[in-house]
């Protein structure tokens, strides 16, 4: 069933259509939630909350653009709110306006698989992890990230630069110790 028809069936309250929509997008959305959290259980909690919001607010979907993109935005917002509410993450979501040394931008080739890369991203401190996910993966600008997280644009830039540098270090280290290095 094409996606728009599927959404219309979901709006009629058909459980089978809702299950089909869930099955279609849950794996990709769980991967997104996985990148924002520190455990599979937390990722599933975010996924659950996110899909509840999707089905309860499906009437607001205007059939413009991919439904997957709409669901993804809800999932990212749910993940951010989850991190803010969850006491495990609150203390680590510190966005300090530190003056970092300018780091030369490098663009290494990434040989790691998606799962390994995601694991490295998840190892970043929560603040860095969130900003990196929002900018590098979701494509939010630093202005948008600032509004979303309640921080200055400059703080977002500096935190992102630090996260990027750390991640590149870890990628290179992982690749050297694995069979992916050339």
């Amino acid at each position, binding site marked *: 069933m094409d996606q728009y028809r599927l959404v219309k069936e979901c709006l009629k*309250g058909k*459980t089978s259509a*809702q*299950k089909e929509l*869930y099955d279609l997008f*849950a*794996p*990709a959305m*769980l*991967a997104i939630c*996985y*990148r924002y959290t520190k455990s599979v259980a937390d*990722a*599933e909690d975010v*996924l*659950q909350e996110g*899909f*509840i919001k999707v*089905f*309860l607010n499906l009437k607001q979907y205007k059939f413009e653009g991919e439904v997957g993109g709409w669901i993804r935005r809800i999932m990212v917002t749910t993940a951010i709110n989850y991190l803010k509410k969850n006491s495990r993450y609150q203390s680590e979501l510190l966005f300090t306006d530190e003056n970092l040394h300018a780091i030369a*931008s*490098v*663009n*290494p*080739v*990434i040989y*790691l*698989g*998606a*799962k390994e*890369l*995601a694991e490295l991203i998840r190892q970043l401190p929560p603040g860095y992890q969130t900003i990196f996910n929002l*900018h*590098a*993966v979701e*494509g939010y600008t630093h202005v948008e990230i600032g509004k979303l997280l309640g921080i200055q644009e400059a703080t977002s830039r500096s935190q992102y630069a630090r996260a*990027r540098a750390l991640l*590149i270090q870890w990628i290179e280290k992982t690749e050297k110790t694995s069979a992916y290095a050339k």
Partner: protein
Amino acid sequence: MQSEFEKQVQQKMDTLRLVPTDPVWQKVNDAIKRRRDKKRFFVFLLAGLMISAVGVWYLLPANKTAVLLNPTEKSKPVYSAAGISTTASSPVEPNKPLAVISGHKIVKSSLLHEQKINTGNPPVSVVNKKEILPDRINQELIQEKEVVQKHPVTPIRNSTVTPTQNNTGITSIDSSATVAKGDTVIATVEDKPVQVIPQDTMAKQPGKHATRKQWHKVIYLQAGSSSFRQGLLANNIVYSAPNSNMSNFPGRVYYRGQTTPGISYGLGAGVIKDFSNRWQLTLALRYQYYSTKSNVGNKYINDTTVRYGGTWIPVSEYYTNTGTQSYTNKVTMAAFSPAISYQLLRQVPLRLSIGAAYGLLVHSNTLTYDEITNLYYYNKKNIVKNYIQLTSGLSYEVGTTHKMFFGPVFQYTANEQQKANVYTFPHLYFIGLQAGIKF
């Protein structure tokens, strides 16, 4: 602008897929269903309230008295037969009532337009055009004593109307007549003589007695909360040894989790028979939804065995008893519900009803709790199909021909819902509000 590194990260993350575990969808589905059930409950409640509100607005008579006032001397309203100069082309037949006022409006009138009465004083005209025009001409209303009793004409102050009787017992009024409370004032419409017909006379008029309708139809909505009368229960005890030696078990050691109330709503339709002014018999068919919530644990789709009816039976799906999840037990029932009601006070339409209903189960997803294995599972054979319910309620009625009623209602299921495990599975009951219409 993103660099090559960001593009690579994005491409790789877009290909990542992880499969969620089964309970995630179950929780999402349950949450959606809970929201939907809540919506339905409020729709039913709103519908009931709207029916009641429309009925009250439509049927309640206004508490105003129709008064023919001299516009210049409002303190001295005059009904006058004498001294009226008639300009109508067809004089009114003597003793023929032209219009009857009950409460605030003329309920019967042979002349349907406002006219002026010339009493020789400044002309008297009807105060409110709208009130004088009858909405509905109803023979029964005129002749029922009760109607007149309920909506007595307020005595007109300082009136000087003196009734005089003619040989038919009809009283006509001249300028010195006094209108007494309880009398039905017959007003004229434009230059016709005014007559007062005492209510007794009206009631005796041959061929015009109202007959009480014996049978009425009724439909009603109920909405409220349902739950179980709690039997034995305790805090959830985590089952820590699922493979322990069952043959040596000392007896019941585990207890089911707590059950909390859920929403309930129903729709009924039937007939009501009036035995007298105060006694009624109602025979209705009711379709009702009940729900309660149980604290269960995670759901597992695995084969296991549970204890039921003294033997071990296989089940392929069960819930643990850790109290971490909420499960909604749903019961749908069709019931035949006879009840007797009695109007408690003569002047106040407040009724007390009691009855006993026979209910037939239409559907239930209620889980059975096994206290030996400390698991919940669905067992259709364990669910009772036939129920006896005790019902009671209070209702306040408004209206005359079509009566609206609303009030609290209570149902109690006399037998348990499940055959086995009766010590831990009590009786279903419902408390809520009811609104309906009798016509």
